[in-house]
């Protein structure tokens, strides 16, 4: 008899677990105040990828630095919370944000229509351009968009680069990220790549990881912003912080460190 009761209890637990996993909870509306939520837990979790010069680690160091990383540290300080950088899979950035496993996406994110639809974004703080990357020894042949028409392009899946390449009718291969796109060109599996100019400045050309590649023609202009949860009051807070940081020269100082001052939006 006792055994039967134990078995019954276990069965109920198992069924309960199944229902719990199948999900009967309702989605909570965005917290009354995202700011209060973050200050309550004491940390701002910044979702990033390894992306020089915005978020990266120096050789032999575990600390995240870069234009975005340094500015994020200042922003967290202004909120009175600690900052925590969390590497994410870029494809899941919106899921991570909505699931509250990160609090913002701040990683040289181009403000595309798609991004603006999925998150509440800050105002733009940095200019960017989608530019064409080719092997240095062939650069002379591809100085205009028209000249590039017959090339096979590697572009990041879902990126601004893909958008512009599709508009121009280029042949594209979708890859996981911008770095992989560069690798495709370096390996000769694609003729060219389209990536962010800020990244290109840091990763392509003499004295970088891809010394044999170079950039030629810029295809369009765009802007970087920070993504927050829908309805978050952190957007306003960030915009105010940015204005102040530009006014007192903080932004300029950081930009100079990472050589991106030419791209700043003031």
């Amino acid at each position, binding site marked *: 008899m006792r*055994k*039967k009761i134990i*078995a*019954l209890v*276990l*069965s109920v637990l*198992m*069924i309960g*677990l*199944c229902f719990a*996993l199948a*999900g009967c*909870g*309702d*989605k*909570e509306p965005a*917290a009354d105040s995202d700011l209060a939520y973050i200050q309550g837990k004491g940390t701002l*979790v910044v*979702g990033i*990828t*390894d*992306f*020089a010069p915005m978020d*990266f*680690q*120096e*050789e*032999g*160091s575990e600390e995240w630095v870069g234009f975005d990383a340094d500015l994020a540290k200042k922003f967290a300080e202004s909120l009175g919370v600690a900052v*925590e950088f*969390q*590497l*994410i*899979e870029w494809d*899941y950035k919106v*899921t*991570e944000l*909505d*699931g*509250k*496993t*990160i*609090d913002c996406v701040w990683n040289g994110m181009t403000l595309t229509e798609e991004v603006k639809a999925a998150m509440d974004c800050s105002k733009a703080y940095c200019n960017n351009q989608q530019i064409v990357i080719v092997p240095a020894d062939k650069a002379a042949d591809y100085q205009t968009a028209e000249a590039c028409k017959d090339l096979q392009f590697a572009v990041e899946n879902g990126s601004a680069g893909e958008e512009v390449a599709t508009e121009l009718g280029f042949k594209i291969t979708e890859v996981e*990220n911008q*770095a*992989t796109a*560069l*690798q495709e060109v*370096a390996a000769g599996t694609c003729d060219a790549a389209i990536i962010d100019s800020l990244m290109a400045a840091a*990763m392509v050309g003499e004295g970088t*990881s*891809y010394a044999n590649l170079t950039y030629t023609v810029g295809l369009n202009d765009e802007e970087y912003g920070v993504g927050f949860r829908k309805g978050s009051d952190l957007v306003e807070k960030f915009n105010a912080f940015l204005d102040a940081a530009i006014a007192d020269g903080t932004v300029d100082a950081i930009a100079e460190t990472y050589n991106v001052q030419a791209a700043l939006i003031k």
Partner: protein
Amino acid sequence: MSQFFQQFPTVFAALNVGFFQTLKLFFCTLLGALPLGLIISFGSMSKFKPLSAVTRVFVWIVRGTPLMIQLLIIFFFPGLVWGNPIWGGGESGRFAAATVAFIINYACYFSEIYRGGIQSIPVGQHEASQVLGLTKSQTFFRVVLLQVIKRIVPPMSNEIITLVKDTSLARIIALQEIIWAGQSFMKGSHGIAGQIWPLFFTGVYYLLFSGILTLLFNKLEKKLSYFKV
């Protein structure tokens, strides 16, 4: 070549950190899944029909869906649907979520191996224990268990070596295990980009570790070869 020697210390350090995560996930999974699998196998063998039916459906769902989906669901579900991110977003939360997903998944696989092993023990062993006055738990732990272990060592060693490699799936929720660490040098990290050799090099870690496990399992098999079942 000089570039390789220059990059090697950085890559080696990063891979070691990643491999430590891999090992941690591996051992925590075993620690949880080995006993949980036994409990699940008892559930699926229960004479109480509703319990065994529910358990078997659960095992079917877990074994019949990709571990990658389970990882995504377990990590993102609480925050997205309940509005309560129970895991938190940091590395330790991702590790906890991955461990839970792996334990549930592997416990279900283990439970089926256990069930096969337990059910293959001749009924005469139970009857002999009973007429000698052994209790149910004495029968299981003193008589049946070691025979079951001997029978399941080969399928378990297969499954456990698969687990070594499956840990790399945890990168889907951005757990920075060794593949993530190796791949980061393709994408660009610590001033190194476009390098594929670190990723190849992660294979050396897997080979060494699964080699050690294979040796250990062979040793265990030999140790249990003194009797026949």
